[in-house]
């Protein structure tokens, strides 16, 4: 049987049906792919091709990037890096109106640079930032909105899980993708900060002013995140200047954090 647009359409419909029925996404994609290959190539070649892909995928060097970055992020999370990042940002800009919301976005940007997931970034920074903002009388909408928006930076600022997966599937250089994402990621963070600043200027009741931290407290908080900042710089600059590959960056990041 030849591959036709109809077989492709049928595959998409079956895939959507399986996904809707709650079949795990990997299995749904695999079953449809296997079915399609069987229709086009026959049972035996389809089975062998699919099985060959298992080992080929498991031993893909680039695929090691994702778990290694996740390991690095998890170790940072275990050492309370998310709280330290938020605290440092909060002590520096927290006294301004909407400062804690600004600190949430800055914390998300910082944590996004050691972790490639939006959900993980929003969850970890949200755990620290939302109770703090509520305690200071921030509106729930602003508090959750700042964390939700800031969380998306995790997916944009390198290392990004989405870019790693895209690079593997589209066979593009992950290092180039990471480098290309730096400016959009930082400009996105900057625009979030501008929007929050304008919003609290327009509606001051959303975010009451909070006490100003003295400079010694600020330096203390900044000193606590110095190693994380070094880690971010090493990871991003190392990839940009070609000192190591993204997979190696994830591995090198761990000893830097130690």
């Amino acid at each position, binding site marked *: 049987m030849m591959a036709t647009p109809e077989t492709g359409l049928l595959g998409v419909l079956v895939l959507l049906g399986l996904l809707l*029925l709650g079949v795990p996404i990997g299995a749904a994609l695999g*079953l449809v792919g*296997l079915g399609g290959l069987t229709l086009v190539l026959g049972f035996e070649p389809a089975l062998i091709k*699919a099985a060959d892909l298992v080992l080929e995928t498991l*031993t893909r060097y680039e695929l090691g990037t994702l778990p290694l970055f996740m*390991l690095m992020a998890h170790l940072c999370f275990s050492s309370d890096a998310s709280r330290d990042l938020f605290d440092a940002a909060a002590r520096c800009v927290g006294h301004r109106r909407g400062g804690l919301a600004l600190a949430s976005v800055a914390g998300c940007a910082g944590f996004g640079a050691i972790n490639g997931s939006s959900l993980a970034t929003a969850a970890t920074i949200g755990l620290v930032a939302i109770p703090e903002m509520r305690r200071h009388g921030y509106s729930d909408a602003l508090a959750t909105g700042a964390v939700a928006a800031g969380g998306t930076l995790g997916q944009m600022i390198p290392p990004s899980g989405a870019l790693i997966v895209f690079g593997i599937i589209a066979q593009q250089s992950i290092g180039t993708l990471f480098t290309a994402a730096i400016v959009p990621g930082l400009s996105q963070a900057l625009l979030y900060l501008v929007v929050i600043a304008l919003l609290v200027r327009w509606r001051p009741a959303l975010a009451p002013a909070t006490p100003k931290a003295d400079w010694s407290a600020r330096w203390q908080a900044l000193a606590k995140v110095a190693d994380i900042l070094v880690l971010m710089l090493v990871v991003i600059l190392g990839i940009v200047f070609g000192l190591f590959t993204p997979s190696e960056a994830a*591995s*090198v990041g761990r000893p830097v954090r130690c």
Partner: protein
Amino acid sequence: MKSSSPKIVRGIVLLGGSALLGAMAIDVVAVIGRHTGIPLLGSIELVQVLVAVAGAMALLIACLHDSHARVRLLLVRLAAAPRRRLLRVDDVLMAVFFLALAGGSCWILYELWGSHEESELWRLPYRPLRLLVVLTLLVAAGLMLRGRADGERP
């Protein structure tokens, strides 16, 4: 999923975690070696093997903890009994997929058994890796077919 022996789960986590840490260590040594003029040749081959072990263990853990990503749009709207039945069907489909892959992997393993397939620099044999893949897929299929203790997970 039905509860599994904590020792087995811990063993799988330890093996996968050690493989990941091993891959990390090799990458670090390779980077240092490259910049100090003592390159670790074939480091990618070593990392590939360790990543395969870590990936295989991750698959088993995902099966044991029922943490495969799935769309829960319909599942969360169903009553307990139909949800349990649907989850059972999902598990069986997942097992069929794993068994198909295991079957194909066995086929390739049988065909290449005497071919001394190995990596280029370190001469790492692929046969144990292929065996690991077959075993992992069979165990994963078994875990899926074993059924779940509760249907309330979603």
